[in-house]
């Protein structure tokens, strides 16, 4: 009974964070829901052995591992020869399947989709840092403990993620303008 109550409280407290992180990493809701489910199930299974003081970082690490597995599987299914490839490399090479109709380009939902696609093109580490900082509101130190990297690296990665996103978005814009002209 205690375990159930504890689990319910923890899952309610952290499910949104897990979901947001998974959504940021995987880019679609169904996969993010699956990732959240898996993370919460692992929480249930490991609850007696988890250090509750570090539960947030633990949950985000579990979510990240699951998401990386999913990304690897997708990549292997798409191109079987690329097994054992670094997830960062895989993400860099994700298909650019944006809608290219210029009439759709002015639409705000299209702009948002463009930004989302740009986010999905980021290497996994940069994307994790960006999502954890911007969407989940974690501090540098919390991100550092979650991703297992120094605080300064987190800061550098966040800066790089922002720069890269900006570059990707502007690149798309200039490409759309060319299409229009």
């Amino acid at each position, binding site marked *: 009974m205690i375990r159930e109550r504890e689990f319910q409280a923890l899952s309610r407290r952290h499910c949104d964070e897990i979901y947001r992180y998974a959504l940021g990493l995987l880019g679609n809701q169904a996969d993010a829901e699956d990732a959240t*489910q898996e993370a*919460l199930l692992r929480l249930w299974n490991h609850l007696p052995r988890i250090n509750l003081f570090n539960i947030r970082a633990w949950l985000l690490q579990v979510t990240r591992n699951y998401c990386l597995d999913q990304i690897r599987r997708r990549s292997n299914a798409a191109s079987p020869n690329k097994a054992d490839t670094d997830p960062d490399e895989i993400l860099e090479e994700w298909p650019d399947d944006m809608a290219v109709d210029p009439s759709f380009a002015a639409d705000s939902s299209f702009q948002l989709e463009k930004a989302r696609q740009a986010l999905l093109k980021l290497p996994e580490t940069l994307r994790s840092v960006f999502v954890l900082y911007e969407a989940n509101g974690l501090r540098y130190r919390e991100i550092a403990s979650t991703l297992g990297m120094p605080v300064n690296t987190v800061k550098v990665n966040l800066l790089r993620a922002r720069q890269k*996103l*900006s570059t990707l*978005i502007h690149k798309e814009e200039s490409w759309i303008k060319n299409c229009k002209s």
Partner: protein
Amino acid sequence: MDKELQKLIHQLQDEKCPSAVLDRVAQRISRQRAPSRSLRSILTGAIPIACLLGALVLWQWHARREAQLAAELAAAQARANRALIVAQTQEAFGYIGQALIRAAAHTENALLKEAVPPLRNSFETVKSKVTKPI
């Protein structure tokens, strides 16, 4: 920061985990727990039965061992009794044999001392009477 990026960040910040996810997790947990519950109930039933069976087996083994020991003891006692009887019989036969030897010696002695001298005397008397000239 770009407008699109800010919009994306706001959208991500507004994202909430659908309640269906928590329901699905609860279902999966209950499904996970169902076999363990039945296993627990089986174990709670099986452990006393196993204890009883174990006690029964132990008791039977003890009883069999006791019976075996009793049989061995009885056999040993019977062997001892037989040995005692043999020893007593040997002693009795020895006593009888000795008595017979003694009796034979006594008879010989009696014959030589009590029967032979009068016979010899009477023989001597008869001999002197016969040999005396008439």
